[in-house]
């Protein structure tokens, strides 16, 4: 039986203190919930335990002995396996191969597919009998892939099992099967860390709970038996640190700037309808895999429209790409992955903002002067209070919040009238988060219409004027936001649960 102890572990990334002196103790035969809002540091902690990140400070102890794993391989060898939040399957490999990936059975030197299928079947059957072990993973639905990930973690028969939001994209039926299984493992003495956003799940299954808030412990291993729902929520959100609701709002509901009518796409959206009004912040909420970010990409020409239509300023349009979206329809887009898609990290603040207006800045013979760029960019840097030593500073050196401001600035510079903003405050500290929210409020008051995509419930409740709920690539409801966390979040989740109950295999 193995005991895992985390002692005041810290971890910083450029611009963000992800973990700040976090502790946790995990005993054999318990299910330990790890809770916190997005960006609270849960996933970072999981990645430190599994050897993916090295902590800057603090210790990880296994049975009282220091155990800092240099790699996931080392953690696996010590009996720690994990289901990570990111998808970690090889699309072209079969289900069975993915489950047994790092220890493929062989017979006289050759991979033995009969054994693979038999072994994988054993673990898969614990959760779902409907998945064929021989098909390629890329042909599965999102929910099925998640099941495969879980089966893979189970197959390692680890002493310590870490599950980062394992239920985010699976159906209630599968969740029930998973819970029954986790209880069996608990009885066998396995120590389980269970990360979930869903309070119901945590109350249903966890023995103790550790809560993280902004990278610090808000609670360490408190027994669930003595925990109330309200107290858990306030531990997670922090009563005094609730996200401020935006001030005065002034959307012009008579003017529709962007509208989808029964829009269906080649990547799976079905009959999506919504109307974004001038100066409005329209929220689009959904769990992982609901199709939110994909909808943004589809609107911007990333997918083929197979039914219905998209209208900008009342006229039906077909947007081919981002270039056309900006130049013809004045739509800007801020990606959820600002490091990979949003910004050119190795380029300067000046170049990153001016990138959208280079064409305009070029002189008669097609040259862009530093002076012209600076003059165009400076007002936005001042207005958005982007903290950078000089305009020539490389964007990668700025904090996450300032990077995000740069990506907003580039669309303002380009005079975008519609802004699609995907997860604008992921990995940004609470103070800067509020700044970004106020900034979005301010530009929407100036007449910019914003489609705000977010899986951060408190953010959604605080910032959006109306909230669309997306699930399984459909809009399943609209919530008139009263800016009160308890009622609005309940209203949103009830829309999602209503669909899940109706069609338990929605994702297939």
């Amino acid at each position, binding site marked *: 039986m193995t005991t895992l102890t985390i002692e005041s572990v810290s971890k910083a990334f450029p611009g963000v203190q992800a973990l700040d002196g976090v502790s946790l103790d995990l005993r054999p035969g318990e299910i330990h919930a790890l809770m916190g809002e997005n960006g609270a540091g849960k996933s970072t902690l999981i990645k430190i335990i*599994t050897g*993916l990140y090295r902590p800057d400070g603090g210790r990880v102890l296994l049975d009282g002995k220091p155990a800092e794993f240099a*790699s*996931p*391989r080392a953690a*696996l*060898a010590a009996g720690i396996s*994990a289901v*990570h939040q*990111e*998808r*970690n*399957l*090889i*699309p*072209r*490999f079969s289900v069975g*191969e993915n489950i047994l*990936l*790092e220890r*493929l059975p*062989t017979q006289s*030197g*050759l*991979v033995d597919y009969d054994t693979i299928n038999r072994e994988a079947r054993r673990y898969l059957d614990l959760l779902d009998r409907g998945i064929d072990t021989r098909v390629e993973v*890329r042909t599965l639905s999102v929910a099925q892939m998640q099941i495969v990930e879980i089966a*893979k973690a189970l197959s390692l028969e680890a002493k310590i099992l870490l599950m980062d939001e394992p239920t985010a994209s699976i159906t209630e039926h599968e969740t029930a099967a998973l819970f029954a299984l986790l209880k069996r493992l608990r009885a066998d003495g396995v120590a389980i860390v269970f990360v979930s956003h869903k309070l119901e799940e945590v109350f249903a299954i966890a023995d103790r709970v550790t809560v993280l808030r902004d990278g610090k412990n808000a609670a360490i291993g408190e027994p669930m038996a003595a925990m109330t729902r309200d107290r858990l929520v306030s531990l997670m959100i922090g009563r005094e640190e609730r996200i401020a609701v935006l001030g005065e709002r002034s959307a012009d509901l008579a003017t529709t700037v962007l509208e989808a009518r029964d829009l269906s796409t*080649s990547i799976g959206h079905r009959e999506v309808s919504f109307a974004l009004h001038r100066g409005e912040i329209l929220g689009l909420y959904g769990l992982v895999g609901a199709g939110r970010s994909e909808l943004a990409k589809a609107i911007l020409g990333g997918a083929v429209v197979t039914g219905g239509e998209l209208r900008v300023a009342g006229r039906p349009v077909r947007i081919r790409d981002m270039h056309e979206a900006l130049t013809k329809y004045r739509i800007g887009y801020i990606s959820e992955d600002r490091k990979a898609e949003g910004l050119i990290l190795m380029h300067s603040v000046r170049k990153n903002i001016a990138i959208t207006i280079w064409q305009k800045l070029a002189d008669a013979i097609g040259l862009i002067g530093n002076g012209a760029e600076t003059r165009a960019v400076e007002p936005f840097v001042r207005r958005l209070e982007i903290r950078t030593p000089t305009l020539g500073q490389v964007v990668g050196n700025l904090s996450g919040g300032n990077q995000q401001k740069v990506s907003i600035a580039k669309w303002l510079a380009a005079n975008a009238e519609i802004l699609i903003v995907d997860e604008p405050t992921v990995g940004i500290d609470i103070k800067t988060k509020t700044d970004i929210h106020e900034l979005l409020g301010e530009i929407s008051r100036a007449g910019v219409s914003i489609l705000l995509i977010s899986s951060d419930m408190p953010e959604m409740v605080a910032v959006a004027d109306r909230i669309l709920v997306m699930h399984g690539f459909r809009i399943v409801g609209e919530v008139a936001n009263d800016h009160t966390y308890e009622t609005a979040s309940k209203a949103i989740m009830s829309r999602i649960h209503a669909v899940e109950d109706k069609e338990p295999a929605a994702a297939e």
Partner: protein
Amino acid sequence: MPFLKRLLLVEWSGLAAAIVIGAVVLAFLSPNFLTEFNIYVMLRSFCVALLVGFAQMVTLGVGQMNISVGALGGLVAISFGGMMEVLGFPIILAVPLAIAIGALGGLINGLLTERTGINGFIITLATASAFTGINLGITESIPFYDMPPALVAFGENRFLAFPYLLIAPVIVAALLGLFFARTVPGRQLLAVGGNPQAADLSGISRGRVIVLAHVLSGALAAVAAVLAVAQLGSAQPTIGADWLLLSFAAPIIGGAALTGGYISVLGTTFAVILIALIENGMVLAKVDPYWVQFLLGALILAAVWLNRWRAVRTGTG
């Protein structure tokens, strides 16, 4: 799944069709095409080309590139020739040593890539220049002409239309097919290419696998070089100089994913057959052979476009 869609998913389906159509058209256009000697000539040029394609295919599989295939091939070729002419080594010793030199070159590529974390493209671009430098430094551009008669005979002789040379690529293709389909290192290699992070999280040692791919690539380039020496009957320092484009063309036309994680031994083989067919067709039609280069470029573009189209159509892109 409807039949047509399933067929579309098979990467080499278009290639097989192109080969059949091409052969039929050539047979009609030229009476010389179906002669035993012409087929022998075609198959002979096919042998080295296929191994060159395989050498690049394994690095593409792991998500890397090996720009030094040709340079390493050249170095191996003159080492092989030098060992036999200058040092008097017997063929039976010179062949494994030549392959070992190729593997060593690959090991250097792999270790440099893995240890420094620098992109393999740049590393192998640099080592390519270094390998060529050693090659020219040793030979001063003068070939080794005095090859053992047995080797020259092996490079020239044939059974009906089949050159003896063909034995090597057939064996290598079978072994590679088995390696990727059925061995753990083979599967690990494709896993790392398919999703490096996932492979890492599964406890596969990414670094070791990348090194392995480069070693394999070097060894395959070496086999290609040995065959080229046998085929030419002399160890030319210029062997390998024109391999680079071909090395990418064959696996890519054969359906390999440029991002890594997917390769096809059969597809690559068909691609090389198609290229040999085109070259042969142009010779028979008395077209300037320099235009082959142009066609190869056009073919790569078409193949990449076809793969993309297929991915979109079948919803796997």
